[in-house]
């Protein structure tokens, strides 16, 4: 090739500078130019090459500051709740959280999303969760085991923004609350299934408020966020109550909290003043003794629902696992493989970047299908677990409806209460010294 490389070069319209360079190549021994089409120039003017700009990421130390902030905020909330019994204190902490974790940290170090990272690290040995994220996952749960949902009260940016915009909350009938209360568990299960299969982090993707914190997001998410806030003026904390998957976890741990906040600092005097104080309908009233149900009938129901739990689990497992094909299509690889099989004419769709990149990658479709099948099988196994979990939640929720806890005082529902402290203001009782 050497000889002819030089022969016709003069004849063409092509560009001189390129040619000079190309001729340079042709002259060089073959071994040296396998690397770079155009060699590094040798400058005569003493020009020095600059270095590329690579701004450093936010330092790790600042992440630990975030963890410290979380701890401090939760400790303060606890102190305000249990010692000072001050709603005002909690209010201002919420404002701080909204500014710091929300608008300053852009809502993106958050306990709600950390569920996915932790789940993924449990199932995927190749994935390592960072210490900060693990701390954000564990700390609020540990706090809730002792003091209830103090995280929701003042340390969660999502909770804070909703809490601060409550204007005139309406009361939800309890049956609606209880029914909608199943959804966060379903969402939690789905989020974990999607995270573990490497499909998507749906909690983060469909976080309605993060777009507001960042002042920019996909159009639909912004609309969803603003819509959620508009609703939130009248339906208090809609995301927390009916969506938040981390709240579902907290609801369980907080239910067994060791020292949950109370409405009264001392003995309840049954004044009923706090009845309408809770925007979240999370105050349990003392049972009406006249309204006690027929005990025998109730016992029969209890046993029935108890027996039904395994049935729910099996039914859920069966139903969701059989929907694994549908669910697995959320995974981009499965989706692509499916598309290529069912719509082979899409290969000619030049605007479909995914298909075209796949085709030009040279990877055979068989390999993609094999990979997709592995993921689909994971969804099948995961479907049984997820379905079983959903069934279990439904079964337990049903069972709960026939369990009576004798109450004499007005108490916050330890699971549903966000420890915001509004009710404390209404209570006329003063703690005896």
């Amino acid at each position: 090739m050497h000889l002819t490389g030089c022969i016709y070069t003069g004849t063409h319209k092509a560009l001189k500078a390129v040619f000079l360079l190309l001729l340079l190549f042709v002259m060089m021994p073959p071994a040296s130019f396998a690397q770079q089409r155009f060699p590094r120039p040798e400058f005569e003017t003493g020009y020095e090459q600059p270095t590329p700009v690579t701004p450093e990421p936010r330092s790790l130390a600042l992440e630990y500051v975030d963890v410290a902030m979380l701890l401090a905020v939760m400790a303060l909330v606890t102190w305000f709740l249990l010692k000072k019994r001050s709603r005002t204190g909690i209010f201002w902490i919420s404002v701080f959280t909204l500014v710091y974790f929300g608008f300053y940290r852009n809502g993106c170090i958050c306990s709600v999303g950390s569920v996915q990272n932790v789940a993924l690290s449990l199932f995927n040995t190749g994935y390592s969760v960072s210490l900060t994220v693990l701390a954000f996952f564990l700390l609020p749960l540990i706090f809730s085991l002792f003091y209830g949902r103090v995280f929701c009260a003042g340390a969660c940016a999502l909770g804070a923004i909703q809490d601060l915009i409550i204007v005139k909350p309406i009361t939800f009938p309890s049956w609606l609350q209880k029914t909608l209360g199943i959804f966060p568990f379903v969402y939690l299960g789905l989020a974990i299934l999607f995270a573990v299969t490497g499909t998507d982090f749906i909690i983060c993707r469909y976080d309605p408020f993060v777009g507001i914190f960042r002042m920019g997001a996909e159009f639909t998410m912004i609309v969803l966020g603003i819509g959620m806030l508009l609703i939130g003026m009248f339906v208090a904390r809609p995301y927390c109550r009916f969506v938040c998957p981390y709240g579902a976890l907290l609801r369980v741990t907080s239910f067994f909290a060791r020292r949950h906040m109370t409405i009264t600092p001392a003995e309840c005097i049954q004044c009923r003043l706090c009845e309408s104080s809770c925007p979240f309908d999370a105050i349990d009233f003392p049972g009406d003794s006249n309204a006690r149900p027929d005990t025998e009938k109730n016992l029969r129901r209890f046993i029935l629902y108890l027996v039904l739990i395994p049935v729910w689990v099996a039914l859920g497992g069966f139903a969701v696992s059989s929907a694994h094909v549908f669910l697995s299509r959320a995974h981009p690889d499965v989706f692509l493989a499916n598309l290529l099989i069912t719509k082979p004419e899409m290969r000619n769709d030049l605007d479909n970047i995914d298909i075209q990149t796949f085709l030009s990658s040279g990877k055979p479709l068989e390999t993609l299908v094999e990979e997709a099948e592995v993921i689909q099988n994971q969804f099948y196994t995961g479907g049984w677990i997820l379905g079983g979990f959903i069934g279990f939640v439904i079964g337990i929720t049903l069972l709960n409806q026939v369990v009576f806890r004798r109450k004499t005082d007005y108490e916050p529902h330890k699971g549903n209460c966000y420890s915001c402290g509004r009710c404390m203001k209404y209570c006329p009782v003063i703690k005896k010294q």
Partner: protein
Amino acid sequence: MDRQTQLKLSANTAIVSGIFSILVSILLLISYWQTSSFNPLETEAIQALVERLAEDPGNDALRDEIRTLDLLARKAYFTSTWQVKTGGYLLLFGAIVCIVALRYYYSLLTKIEKPGEPVVNENVNRILSQKWILAAGMVIMVLALAAAVLSRNHFSTYTPVSSAIVAEAVTGTDQVEVVEIRTDSAQEGMQGDEQEGLEGEVSQGAAAITMRFPTREEVLQHHNAFRGPFSNGITSRRNIPVDWDAATNRNIKWKVPVPKEGNNSPVLWGNKLFFAGAEGRSQTVYCYDHNTGRLLWQQDVNNIPGSTAAVPRVTDDTGLSAPTLTTDGQRVYSIFATGDVICFDMDGNRIWARNLGVPENHYGHASSLICWQDKLYVQYDTGEGGRLIALNVLTGETLWQTFREVEISWASPILAQIGGAYQVILVADPLVAGYDANTGKEMWSVPCMSGEVGPSAAYSDGLVYAVNEYAVLVAIDPTREEVVWEDNEFLSDISSPVVSNGLLFILTSYGIMVCYDAKTGEEYWEYQARQGFMSSPIVAENKLYVTDWDGNTYIFEVSREMNLIGECSLGEPVYTTPAFADGAIYFKGWENLYCIGQ
């Protein structure tokens, strides 16, 4: 301030800030709608104008128009970004004021009320809850089951196209026999209706695509690849002309101008002759009637996914369309220096196209294509590493690729039957190697080559011949992976060797043609032509046709003694290898395409 004033003030503040927020939201929505329906940076208008300017570089008015439009587009983009950002902050501000005012207003209104009547009966509530929870649970289950019923699992029924192909091979005499391709994975006993079903499923685009692959006998009747069938430099065609002259138009059956530059050689199947050309980004495949020289169709090669907008840098002697096309009688395949591979049916309908990634090659990609049965072989020895790629002829999918540790090569693959199985033989620095045509497995390799390899291999009677200028001429026994003999006196630069009747012919770039004993390497004779050779020799009817780059063709008898039968001239440069049909030779010169014959 008394309570009434405060109430009024907060209510008014809330209303004003609320209206303000709504107005800002509407403005933001309008801005969003504008940018989503029209992205100023993606406008086609500027691109169209730039293309017009490229054709008419002196048009200053056009130039100014582009600059104005470009400035406007960028202004529009940055203004809209600014609008969204500022609008966002304004909305946030408005919303905060509104919320604070509203909260204040309602906090003034609410007082701790006297408790009303005791709440609703708890029992009724609980029973309602049970009903609704049951209903919700059932809804979840039904939704899941509905999703299960509505989504079909396509993976369980998926069988890879390539392994399911059971091809029908049509012999020259219309005898039909069923040949299984890739017997390792093909299912046995798939015949009749099932085949037709598969055919229907796989063929897309044009209707006439079938999955028959020509047999060896059928391929040998055509000139379907660079240097003839199986790229071995030998044709079985008869009545080849031995006398012509372009100056006097003697024995020139027809002549048409070559529409676009391209150093690829013509290939033939039946009455169709194919070649390609490329100028800049414009790449075209042509089909001519072999009898009349009439253009049957031409198709632009564009809109290929992954293909670069830019033209790769190549030298002019190699060009953008150096690789020769290949055809299997149903489809024709072409590759360009851009890495674009395209497949048309015989009527010019595009079947598939893809980009293999721009080959890193400082002269331009030159390795020609070759196909056999369901596979199209691409020698892709680029600066980024060497690969032999087998593409599915029906879909263009990669069936397999074998990585090779070699430098860039400009040689082309040849196909040879060694030990009963077909092998693809490739030459590059440093390997001469053979690969199983079915699986891509390297069967043998001999590291003996060096430099920038242009000539392809030749195969005859158990020996593989490879040559390169400034390197070596070797005869290799592939079964023992060793060099049988070697020589370095006469070496060719671009022109490939050919072996016939136990004689090996080498054409050098300085015009010397040499005849060796193929078994021993003993030199029988040499001949000094008037010019150097780029075109490769072809043996037809025991005659050797060689053409120098001035377009002089020398016809020798294939024998141990030199016997120049004839010398003919086209009067224009010829860098390509001619194609042979019964009674005709097709030359693609720098300017014209010639059909030599009666």
